[in-house]
Structures are given as structure tokens and as C-alpha cells.
């Protein structure tokens, strides 16, 4: 495993009487993507602002790329890139001017920042629009330019605060591809998101935070496994077959199935997943029970998120790693 590029220890931050962060710990390894997942107001942006030297923590310690975010803030700023929630690019400048100025402010020499601005424009599909004012850009182009600007100095650690909020699915996909390329080239990325799909696609590690505390962490698979694992579901074509099908599944799985007559659905826990599915399929065929659907369903990260943050789903958060 790579070296730790982001280390956060017991970081707290309060604004007035509001506790934005109540003692957060996390570690991100080099060349990996860590996703901070949480609802609005969970403290994601506050943590990003602390790690990018925009805010000082009230207590605790945080190091990024080997630099303390308070004591070594000036040195750290050379090593990080930040693309915030709003595309922080200048509307009255061209795309190229925006990139070149950010390069200058990273203290690159002129020849170097001009070359890198050109690289970014090419890479992000903005070459044709590069010499147009940003106010003529679409939302997706602005976001790409913003992320491109954060890459001008080739930072070791990149912070992306909700990088795809408000983008259409296609542009979102493009941004994800860019991030994947960066990571495969060795950049460490911390991204905040409310989108499970984004966390699932990009993140090696997911840290779920709510009201300023870490409430769960792990890979997407680990988080989903905690929600009770997979179930095998069979939907019969003819309601008259429901009883027979239930008996059959009871034999296959050696458990009592759950029956949902309205949806003509029978389900059993399916820890063994595929093996159970094959066995059940064979038996249904032998018994000539017609099915509309047969499959193993795993809980989505959405289910996990809703369960953890109490976001209206019935399932209570029942994970041992509670708020500390």
C-alpha cells in the first residue's frame, strides 16, 4: 500500500454554537481516491476547506502530502489543487487566460505555464473554446476548465468538492474519466459527493459523514455488505404458482422465504449468491414454474446511505461503528 497522503486526526471545527466537525479521523493513501459521502451540511466542505488551508481546525491535526495544514500551510499550497463547488473561473477571461494565470500563481515560468495551459485545453476538450471568454461556456465546460485549472501545477493531492454537481450525465461521465486518468497516473484525490454512483465508480475508500462525524467507512462493497447482504428474488408469472415457488425456494435455501403476494415476489437471503441462483433456476425449470424475473439483488450504496443517515428509509442504522 502507498504512503498516507492525507492524514486527519480528531479534527474539530465549530462555527458559533454549530459543530461542523466533531472529531474526524481519516487516512487517504497515495494514488487512491477517497470519497467523503454525506448529506448537505454534514461537514464535507468544512473538512475540504481545512485540508486546503482555507480554514484552521479548532483542534486535532491534519497533514497533507507530509505538510501540516496549519504550520506548513504555505508549503502545502504548492502541492495541492482545489476545485470547489462553484466553478471558480473568471467569466471575463478566456479559458486559456484563466489557466495561464493560475499557472503563474503557482510560480511556474511563463514558457512552462503556457505549455501546460495548452495541455489542459487539449486534454479537457476545450481547445476550440480556449480563446473564447468563459461566459460563453456551458456549465460542463466551466467545470472542466475549473478542474483543469486545479491540475496546472500537477498537484500531488487533488481536492474536488462535489465535482459533478449540476452536470448532465454525459459530462459527468467525462469528468469521471478525467479523474480516473489522473489517479492512474498517481494523483491522490479526495472528493466529496452526494452521489452514490460517483463514490462507487471512483472511490477506493468511502468515508460516510453526517453532522460532523464519521458514521461508517470502507469500500463500497464493505458498506453494502453491512446492510445485510444479497437476496435472491423470484417473480412468478402466474399468481397461482406462488405457493409452489415458495416451497421450492424453501427447499433450495433451507430457510423460510418472504412472500410478497402483491408483487408476486418470493425472496430468500442469498449469501452464496450465484450458486444459489443457479440451483434455484434449475429447480424452477424442472418444476415448470414460469418466472418473470429471477435474480440476486444486492443493496445499493443508496440503501446504505439512507440507512446510515436516517434519510427516510425504514431500515435503522445498525452498524457497530457509530458516531464517536
Amino acid at each position, binding site marked *: 500500500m*502507498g504512503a498516507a497522503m492525507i492524514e486527519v486526526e480528531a479534527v474539530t471545527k465549530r462555527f458559533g454554537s454549530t459543530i461542523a466537525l466533531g472529531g474526524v479521523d481519516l487516512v487517504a493513501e*497515495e494514488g487512491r481516491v477517497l470519497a467523503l459521502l454525506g448529506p448537505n451540511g454534514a461537514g464535507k466542505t468544512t473538512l475540504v476547506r481545512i485540508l486546503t488551508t482555507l480554514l484552521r481546525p479548532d483542534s486535532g491535526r491534519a497533514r497533507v502530502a507530509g505538510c501540516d495544514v496549519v504550520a506548513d500551510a504555505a508549503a502545502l499550497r504548492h*502541492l495541492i489543487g482545489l476545485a470547489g463547488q*462553484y466553478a471558480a473561473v473568471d467569466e471575463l477571461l478566456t479559458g486559456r487566460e484563466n489557466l495561464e494565470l493560475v499557472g*503563474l*500563481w503557482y510560480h511556474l515560468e511563463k514558457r512552462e505555464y503556457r505549455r501546460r495551459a495548452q495541455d489542459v485545453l487539449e*486534454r479537457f476538450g476545450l481547445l476550440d473554446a480556449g480563446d473564447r471568454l468563459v461566459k460563453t461556456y456551458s456549465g460542463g465546460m466551466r467545470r472542466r476548465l475549473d478542474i483543469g485549472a486545479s491540475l496546472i501545477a500537477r498537484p500531488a493531492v487533488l481536492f474536488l468538492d462535489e465535482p459533478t454537481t449540476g452536470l448532465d450525465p454525459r459530462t459527468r461521465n467525462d469528468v469521471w474519466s478525467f479523474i480516473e*486518468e489522473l489517479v492512474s497516473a498517481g494523483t491522490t484525490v479526495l472528493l466529496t459527493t452526494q452521489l452514490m454512483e460517483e463514490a462507487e465508480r471512483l472511490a477506493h475508500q468511502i468515508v460516510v459523514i453526517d453532522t460532523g462525524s464519521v458514521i461508517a467507512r470502507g469500500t463500497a462493497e464493505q458498506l453494502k455488505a453491512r446492510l445485510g447482504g444479497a437476496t435472491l428474488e423470484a417473480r412468478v408469472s402466474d399468481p397461482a404458482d406462488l405457493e409452489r415457488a415458495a416451497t421450492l425456494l424453501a427447499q433450495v435455501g433451507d430457510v423460510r422465504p418472504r412472500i410478497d403476494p402483491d408483487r408476486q415476489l418470493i425472496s430468500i437471503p442469498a449469501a452464496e449468491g450465484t450458486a444459489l441462483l443457479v440451483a434455484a433456476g434449475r429447480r424452477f425449470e424442472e418444476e415448470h414454474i414460469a418466472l418473470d424475473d429471477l435474480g440476486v439483488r444486492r443493496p445499493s450504496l443508496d440503501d446504505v446511505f439512507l440507512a446510515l443517515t436516517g434519510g427516510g428509509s425504514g431500515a435503522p442504522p445498525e452498524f457497530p461503528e457509530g458516531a464517536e
Partner: protein
Amino acid sequence: MTEAGVGGRPPRPPGRTTVRDAARDTAGVAKRNLLRIVRTPQLIVIGALQPAMLLVLFRYVLGGAIRVPGGSYVDYVVPAIFLEAVLIGGMTTSIGLAADLKSGIIDRFRSLPMARSAVLAGRTIADLSRSLLSLAIMVGLGLLVGFRFHAGVGSIIAGMALILVFGYAFSWLYAAIGLATKDPETAQIAGILPFFVLMFASNAIVPVATMPSWLQGFARNQPLSVTIAAVRALLEGGPAGHWVWQSLAWSAGILIVFFAISLRLYRNTAA
């Protein structure tokens, strides 16, 4: 384009920001703001409209009713309006900074290794060029409504320079207002207050001798009055030294105090 970070160890933290870096950073910010000024010419036109209306108001509407000792009212009031034009233009510093805070651009700036003073210094320098432009427009309009220079070229240039020096110092007060209010609308309203007080409780429009005695002390010695007195003397060709030094001292004081306050606000800002 992202070989950084490849291979075990994080890169070595680079050295401290040098004076050259700080100068380049500031020039970069000034360039950004100058490009913005050039690309919104409508702002320059509308910005010139306000002082132009003041000029017409005091020259033609109110001017006829105001008597000044030993000279024509147009020569009395127009130098004050030159200075007011520059101060009104300076309000764009506070509005622009507040807008940058709101848009998230300042967040990006603060996450970059650029010199801390560069964002503010670059902006005030760019706004100084805007002041120069609006001053030029006002001189043209002033001549059009009957204002005349009575001094030599050197003295006139010194007078204009004094206006710009005072305007530059004042832009740091506007910078502090922009950073403190963090909102363009609030910044605009807050920025009018010091301008309003200094302009009306001064020798800009009427001689201080016509005011109640409790007001005269303030009205005679406040920075705007002192600067207007110096500029009038320089453009008239009279003895100006006393006022010029007082004006420069005020400018230096305003600059130092509000530079320090603005930098502190910028460092601690959390928009």
C-alpha cells in the same frame, strides 16, 4: 500531464515566496482585473456618468446660488469633482472584491501559493488605471462646462498626481469594506457612507466658513478637504505646499492602516 505524485515520497516542499514571486503574483492579478475592466466598457461609461451628473448639478443647478470668495464657482467646484470622480470609481474595488468572495474565486486564490497581498494589491493597481481614465474623462467635461487651469503644466500634473495618490490610498479603505461585507450589494451601500460624509462635510462644494462652528474643525481638516485645498491651489497656481504635505500624510496614513486591515481580513476570511 500528471507525473506528480508517482513514486513513493511526496514532493519536497518548495521554498518561501520571494519578492520576485510576489511581484509576479501582483502583476498577474492586476492583469486579470485590467482585462475585466477592458472587457466591460459599459462599466466605464456608467461609472463616468455619476460624477458627470454631479458636475452638471453643481455647475448649473446649484452653482448659481453659491458664492465663493475671490473667484468663479466653476473653478472652485470642478477640482473637487475630479477627486470625487476618482473616489466614486474606487467603489468598484469593494464591490469587485465582495463579488470575488461570493463567487468562490477568492477561495481558489487562497488555496494557491501566491503572495497574500497580491490579490489586493493587484486589484487596487488595476482600479488605479480605471481612476486615471475617469479622471481624464472628467477633465474633458470640466473644460467643456467652463473650468480653466490657471497654473503651469508642472503644477497641473502635480495636482492630478495628488488626486490619484489619494484615490489609491482610499481604494484600500474600499478593499477593507469589500472584504468585511462579503456581499456586493452590501459593499456598495457601505462604500457610499464614507464618501458621503467626507464629500458633504468638506470644502468640496461650499466654503467651510459658511458652516456652523462645531462642524468647521472637522470639515477643514479632514482628508478630503485637505486634498481638495491642495489640488485647488496646484491648479490655480497658488502656494500649495502646506496642503500638499498634509494630503500626502493623510494618504500615507490611510494606505498603511487599511492595507493592514485588509490583509488581515483577507487572511482570515471565510466566505
